[in-house]
């Protein structure tokens, strides 16, 4: 679909959608609107590409939470019923769905605003590597921001933010640049899509459980 839009920029359909026939709009204005829309739509990744990057986010985010969930499970088994434990899991999975979707917005946004050759053309490789390294950084940052002391005044040192972000950008750049890395990441993202058949459906059920629980 994206391709067809790109090859027929002046079609009746595109003009109607872009508001090019708005009375009073100058030809230059109409042309600019068309160009912007064309640029945005041509950079939007396809569903499969989105799914591959999303699957990486799902794999890491859900695994992380489930890991913590199982770490607590032995204690909960002592004093919670199975139903209560499942409701805790439902809440966790519903939260995971929200945060994985929020996270997916970042590579999509980058694909829209960065030059095509920088990101959009290598969306899976750079998007997946950005997701992986970004989440790894969040794990590190979360560890740094434990409330061990009484007041977290020194935890957000500039180096703590700048250094890893620089490293993250470099990794994302290299993954898009070096064919071997790119293939590895794309291959991993492709395989990770299997999780999309499990986690999102579970999350939808969980979301329903949460909504029913909170409204009754």
């Amino acid at each position, binding site marked *: 679909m994206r391709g067809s839009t790109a090859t027929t920029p002046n079609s009746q359909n595109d003009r109607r959608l872009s508001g090019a026939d708005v009375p009073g709009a100058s030809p230059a204005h109409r042309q600019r609107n068309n160009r912007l829309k064309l640029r945005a739509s041509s950079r939007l990744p396809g569903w499969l590409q989105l799914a591959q990057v999303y699957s990486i986010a799902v794999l*890491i*985010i859900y695994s*992380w*939470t489930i890991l*913590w*969930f199982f770490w*607590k499970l032995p*204690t*909960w088994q*002592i*004093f*919670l019923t199975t139903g*209560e434990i499942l*409701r*805790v*899991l439902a*809440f*966790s999975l519903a*939260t*995971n769905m*929200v*945060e*994985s979707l*929020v*996270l997916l917005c970042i590579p999509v946004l980058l694909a829209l605003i960065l030059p095509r050759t920088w990101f959009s053309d290598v969306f899976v490789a750079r998007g997946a590597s950005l997701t992986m390294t970004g*989440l790894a950084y*969040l*794990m590190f*940052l*979360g*560890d740094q*921001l*434990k*409330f*061990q*002391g*009484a*007041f*977290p*005044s020194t*935890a*957000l040192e500039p180096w703590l933010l700048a250094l890893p972000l620089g490293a993250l950008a470099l990794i994302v750049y290299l993954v898009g640049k070096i064919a071997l890395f790119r293939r590895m990441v794309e291959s991993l993202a492709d395989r990770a899509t299997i999780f999309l058949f499990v986690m999102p459906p579970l999350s939808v059920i969980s979301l329903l459980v*949460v909504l029913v*629980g*909170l409204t009754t």
Partner: protein
Amino acid sequence: MTSISRRDFLKVGSSVSGALAVSSLAAGTSLSAPDPAASLPNILILVFDAMSAMNLSLYGYRRETTPNFERFAQRATVFNQHYSTGNFTTPGTASLLTGLYPWTHRAINMSGLIARDRAVQNLFRAIGKRYNRLAFSQNLLANYFFDQFRRDLDEILSPASFSLVESFVSIGVGAGWMDADRAIGDVLFKEGYGTGSLVLGLAERLRRYESVARRDTPDYPDALPRTITPVFFQLKDVFDGLIATAGSLIPPSLAYLHIWSPHDPYVPSRQFDGAFRDGWTPEPKPSHRLVDPHRHHSVRTLNENRRLYDEYLADVDAGLGRLYDALSAKGILDSTYVIVTSDHGEMFERGMMGHETPLLYDPIVRVPLLISAPGQSSRRDVDIPTSGVDLLPTVLHLTGAATPAWCEGQILPGLGGPEDPERSLFMMEAKTEHPSAALQKASFAIRKGRYKLVDFMGYPQYRVQHRLEMYDMETDPEELNNIYSETMLAASAMKEELLARIDSYNAQFAE
């Protein structure tokens, strides 16, 4: 036409007899249960988390940590040997609210709950709908109990009430749906560890950092007091909130207000920061064998933290003083029983700091208890050992209700209960044990008369199944000299009594 209910009629019509009951209390005469038909007094229960009686000047502590407690004591009954039933919030608070020992209510684990069949045996249900029942706790562990009692409570205040910066947990995702809070508090937004939610958990953490950093809090230049959840607060705001809450109670009300301070982190305000830099160092005690080597603290660290704790205590005391003055000025003390106590203590000795420990020495289980009756004008001291399980039957008694058969406590001496100096009181710690199985590894203590027997059961650090320690609390209040072998007669009797209790508890799981 305005209709008057039977309840309203009884309230108004009995005000004279109520006043008579109050005046008898004020005169310091023998206290008795009010006439059921009399107007019911308000009950205000203030629980200060982790407040050790051993660190209060009210009870003879060297540092003057609690001048306002002493002032309050001038119109209260002061219990000088009062014990919590456990050494951390869950068992201690559960006993306060159920009148049951931990082996019965079974809230023995961190974040644990009261056994389902026991959760209906709580103070709020026992006092009944004749009272407006309100609960507030800054400590989430107590909020888990409120959730269990939610059908018996008219109002549960958010744990983030009176605070500066709320955490997402405290905002409350649907009151009465504690599973959500547990998911958020124990997994997704877990404090003190990594967050279970990589993205939102961290975002929430950063939000709090930013919120805290933006606050202009001149009273706390370096750090804000906070709970473990965490909720950041200023003590003055909390006490303002308590004053407002107490002032807005519609009689008759029962309000259970559980304040985080002086629980760690010990963060005294500027006024009290450094107040006890007096160079005093208590006599060091030998390290205990059961102190986790990874949590073992040097004497210097213990003393430094003891000083901070004392300063934080003094800060809390100042808040109590303000509360006391406000209640006096508003005349609330003339119609309200004000109960001040704690769920457990805190220790800074034997290599141990805080209360995450299997130990049951007095600093960690002996807590304050002061009860001011409406209009009381003189101090009364009760030196007989008493227990946290006694709070429920006493409150019921003060409101004219009988002690339920299931209750393991008894009405406090001095407030209508028997004065039995040889009564046995129990404490236990078993946070690693399954609450629905026989106990394998736990600490127990029994206080009877002048003696205290401690049983460390099933600890691999000892070669014996029961490691027993006996102390004479009259001659050795610091619990330094184990006289178990020297007092075999008394020790054996107490040991038998304790073991019988443990066996009885374990027997129900024998099958």
